[in-house]
């Protein structure tokens, strides 16, 4: 099976975040890491390759720093990488990123495309689904398990309240992978050394520009939540206070 894994570089979970001047995104001077759900997508792809053979290709879009996630993917066992290398990809919406990815892989023939369920920064959970629509492929989201079947795959999706859904679909297909479905491997020292010699294709913005459109979605303004303290004393008999408290928790704070 030939599997493409879409990987994103996101700010580290414990990085102190500061807004940029326009308040539209965070300042770039933070530490970055692989988007965690994408790490699980990569792990699942590597496991499928180990079971069924084939090739795992990792792809990302972003400035030079984003190449780190591809190098990590290669060190863990991916066979080659594609880097859509331009700072302009940072501000693109999921639609344009999906279009750029689809344009960049037009000469490849993948059986499966994996993405993490969502990104740890924007959290849109759209890229995989949009790619499937652009390619005209079937897709399934929040995948817990993948099994090869005659002529396609069987997947287990996670639903709400502990329910699961089992879906069969032909290949090629797009799957968005749930975090925690496997145990992530560590990059080995040998893997890191070998990664240096694996192919990494750079794709410029110009090469995919004709496929892109204006962003359909954009962040107008981000706000850091303001911390405030407000104390309100409820008065009356215990029964009255309890009643008022329940009312406030239900209607104002909305936690019950």
């Amino acid at each position, binding site marked *: 099976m030939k599997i493409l894994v879409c990987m994103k570089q996101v700010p580290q979970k414990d990085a102190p975040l500061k807004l940029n001047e326009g308040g539209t995104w965070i300042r770039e001077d933070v530490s970055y890491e692989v988007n965690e759900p994408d790490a699980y997508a990569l792990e699942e792809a590597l496991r499928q390759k180990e079971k069924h053979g084939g090739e795992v290709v990792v792809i990302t879009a972003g400035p030079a720093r984003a190449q780190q996630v591809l190098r990590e993917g290669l060190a863990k066992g991916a066979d080659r990488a594609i880097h859509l290398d331009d700072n302009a990809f940072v501000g693109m919406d999921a639609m344009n990123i999906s279009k750029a990815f689809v344009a960049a892989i037009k000469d490849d023939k993948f059986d499966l495309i994996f993405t993490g369920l969502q990104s740890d920064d924007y959290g849109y959970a759209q890229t995989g689904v949009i790619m499937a629509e652009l390619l005209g492929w079937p897709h399934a989201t929040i995948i817990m398990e993948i099994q090869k079947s005659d002529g396609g795959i069987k997947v287990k999706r996670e639903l709400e309240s502990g329910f699961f859904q089992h879906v069969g679909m032909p290949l090629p297909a797009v799957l968005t992978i749930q975090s925690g479905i496997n145990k992530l491997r560590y990059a080995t020292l*040998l893997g890191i050394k070998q990664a240096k010699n694996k192919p990494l294709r750079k794709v410029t913005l110009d090469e995919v520009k004709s496929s892109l459109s204006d962003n359909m979605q954009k962040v107008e303004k981000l706000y850091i939540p303001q911390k405030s303290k407000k104390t309100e004393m409820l008065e009356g008999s215990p029964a009255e206070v309890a009643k008022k408290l329940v009312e406030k928790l239900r209607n104002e704070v909305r936690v019950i």
Partner: protein
Amino acid sequence: MELHSQLKAAVGELCRGFPDAYWRELDARRAYPSEFVETLTKAGYMATLIPEEYGGAGLGLTEAAIILEEIHRSGGNAAACHAQMYIMGTLLRHGSAEQKKQYLPKIASGELRLQAFAVSEPTTGSDTTKLKTLATRKGDRYVVKGQKIWISRAEHSDLMLLLARTTPVEQVKKRTEGLSTMLVDIRKSLGHGLTIHPIRTMVNHATTEVFFDDLEVPVENLVGEEGQGFRYLLDGLNAERILIASECIGDGRWFVDRACRYAKERVVFGRPIGQNQGVQFPLARAYANVEAASLMVAHAARLFDSHQPCGAQANMAKLLAADASWEAANAAIQTHGGFGFAEEYDVERKFRETRLYQVAPISTNLILAYLAEHVLGLPRSY
């Protein structure tokens, strides 16, 4: 450089699987970090310095230093296994082709652990040439009698490199002669002339004292030439100094990171304590000293990797890095106030751990004495 950032990121990721609580709990139980060591070994990091032809990564001391620094910077401690990286150097440089073929691939895979080096003795300490453990040749074996102390990881090692006197000191021209290195198969020797007793210390360091009671060691286990062991020992010391210095740098950076984080969050008298120069300055100074020491560590590692003499630089790296990490440890515990003494903040654990490097593997005073004599040309003081 790209390889270095990859290495750092990958070791950092591995270490995130072993958070503060893991080390804290081991420390409380005085237990060996088996799971961490196994993970590190499986991922191939312990075989960094072993040439590719023997199944290692064939990388240099610079890369090994990056790995160890990152482990310490993440809050962990590589002392449980760092010697697996460098003790094999004696075998690699001075062992026979047969020995290298027999042992190095298994050391690279982790099947054999060679991470105990028996040098120090209770009565001789740093005066190594006076060591009393005797290995007397009898036919095709040596019979070893004596005692060693501060032998780290002996209980977690399959092989031990032993430095013993094969010619009594009164029969040699120079006291540096007549010492030999040999491999002791711990697994076969326990109960047959070899006894290991753990020593409980202020750090969770798996150190021991080792007794040789007419232990028989086959002659083919001799590494290099008989009588040349002291020279082989010196050969390996630079690598050890540089690698342990890199751990100190990792510790130093950890202390500064943690202390700064706490100083920003902890509010007393209506403002973060980090706003006070009395808190800032020790941290800023510690940071500067850690950064400066890290330059010397990198310089020494570069010299080592390019096969240039690096005795002075390796010693200075160890001195400066150990001093910088200790200064950072003090600044961190002071910044944390009472909380610095609470186990759950991990500062006290790292504080105890980094204190060791003022003393081991070589005492700070002996480094100064070395520099005074060998670099500054002053009369020998000891």
